[in-house]
């Protein structure tokens, strides 16, 4: 079980701090487009062969591979974005995304940055009280491309096993 474990890092405190700032900037922009429900922009945060999954912590801890959302490659993410926007029938809602506790846990020889951070999604249906929709952990791998960072992999591991009704948008 890797979630919330102390992990050895090959970085100096200064390097880790600088990278943490980069990751936080990335996540702030990522959360902004999700808050705005600008779903078309979402796949662009990933590399062409990027991987994205949302799964419950019970699956992650047991090494089970299923995802609530399971996208291998940006084309699959584009198909999901198109479905959310065009074909999936759902009530209007507001969503707000909070990201914190970023921990950069290491950098590979090829420059891949490993990081983990907590996320929280708050949901408001039009005539209902605001509720915490999901609490979870991002387990990420970033690469630098064309001067910016892109996600090579984002695993969203949620604690909130009992999902209220359904989950329309990615986190």
């Amino acid at each position, binding site marked *: 079980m890797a979630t919330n474990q102390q992990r050895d890092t090959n970085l100096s405190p200064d390097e880790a701090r600088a990278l943490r700032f980069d990751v936080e900037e990335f996540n702030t922009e990522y959360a902004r487009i999700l808050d705005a429900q600008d779903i078309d922009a979402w796949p662009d945060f990933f590399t062409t062969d990027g991987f994205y999954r*949302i799964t*419950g912590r019970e699956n992650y801890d*047991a090494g089970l591979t*299923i995802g609530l959302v*399971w996208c*291998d490659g940006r084309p699959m993410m584009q*198909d999901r974005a198109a479905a959310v926007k065009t*074909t999936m*029938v759902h009530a209007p809602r507001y969503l707000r995304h909070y990201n914190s506790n970023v921990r950069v846990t290491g950098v590979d020889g090829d420059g891949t940055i490993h990081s983990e951070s907590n996320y929280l999604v708050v949901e408001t249906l039009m005539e209902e009280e605001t509720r915490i929709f999901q609490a979870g952990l991002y387990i990420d791998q970033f690469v630098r491309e064309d001067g910016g960072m892109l996600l090579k992999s984002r695993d969203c591991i949620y604690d909130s096993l009992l*999902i209220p009704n359904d989950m329309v948008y990615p986190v």
Partner: protein
Amino acid sequence: MPDTPFIDDGSNLPLSELRWPDDDLTRIPDWIYTSDEVFQRERERIFFGESWCFVALEAEIPDPGSFKRSYVGDVPVIVSRDQDGEVHVFENRCAHRGVEFCRDLRGKAENFTCPYHQWMYDLSGKLMAVPFRRGDRGEGGMPKDFKLEDHNPKKLNVTIRHGVVFASFSETVESLEDYLGPDNLEQFDVVFKGRKLKILGFYKNRLQGNWKLYHENLKDPYHATLLHVYLATFRLMVAGQKSAMICDESGRHSTMASAKDDDIEITEETASQMKSAFREGMELSDPEFLNYVQEFDSPWTVTMQIIWPNLIVQRELNTLGIRHIVPRGPNALDMYWTMFGYDDDTPEMDKHRLKQANLMGPSGYLGVDDNEAIKFLQDGFKHSQDGEGIVKLEPEKEGSTQTLISEASVRALYRHYREVMDI
């Protein structure tokens, strides 16, 4: 969740005062979805009555000592495998004070111990030990005539077919084979017979609707052609395509079946009937996603089987899973999903199933639509005044049918339901 308390929808009338409108099966009164008394009677007569309820897949409890928490209706039970390999189902409730003692979702154990006073049960649910039964230093303790064997948690009747475990509170329930009937047994076996399952993972969601709405949803192929834009757009299920609703004699169980047809022509007439449920020209960036690998001895590319009262067997292209309904009062249900493939799947097939799992589940391209629709329905019932729904499509039939534009099997279900419920 706050509710609007100021509208009296009649659902709190005593059951004896509630009348089915004109005894007419084409009309369904809203109160069957909202009344507490109706729900209590459903627990007694359906979930605890002459029914087989799904509790587990054997693949979830593979070894001696494996167990999982599960439910029959809304009653928590433990499903466990003893040292001899036999599967047991018993109430997750300590015979002492009623503690729901097993808290882990699943795992392995040698026995179960209630944390409150350390009463200990073996893997078959038998009470084995009560601390200080004889008191301490001659004082206190249980009465002399206290016998361990009189204090076991309630044990359920168990039956297993091709790795699927069902339980019943009834001692007189018919065999599972008779319960399902030949046609639905055949559909069940397509998925489970002969191949060992591999568990891919679990989901859980709470739907804001009455549990019967899920049954209706899967007995209503009409909605599939209209609500699910994705199905029509990618020609997974379209009016005019080869399809069937296969009901059993009693009307309880059914399988919605359809064969994907990439060449089906969507006529202007069909397209105009579908209104906004069809997006001409939309294409997938990853077209392999909807590939169907023929792996079953069946003409259908999708079968959605619903086994009364709490199991759905999903076979949509190559994504397989079961859904276990746990009713939570009249206004909500929890859905426990177990997604699986087969033990002999290649890595490519494994990946294909994980990809196609995007279709279903709480985030599924099709799953979301149904969850949302069920909430919209319940919202309608909760705030109605003497409301009722109509199910009149294909009036000459009741039960099995070949067309998607039908509500014949919804009526068959409610004939059965009304008999059992005596309403």
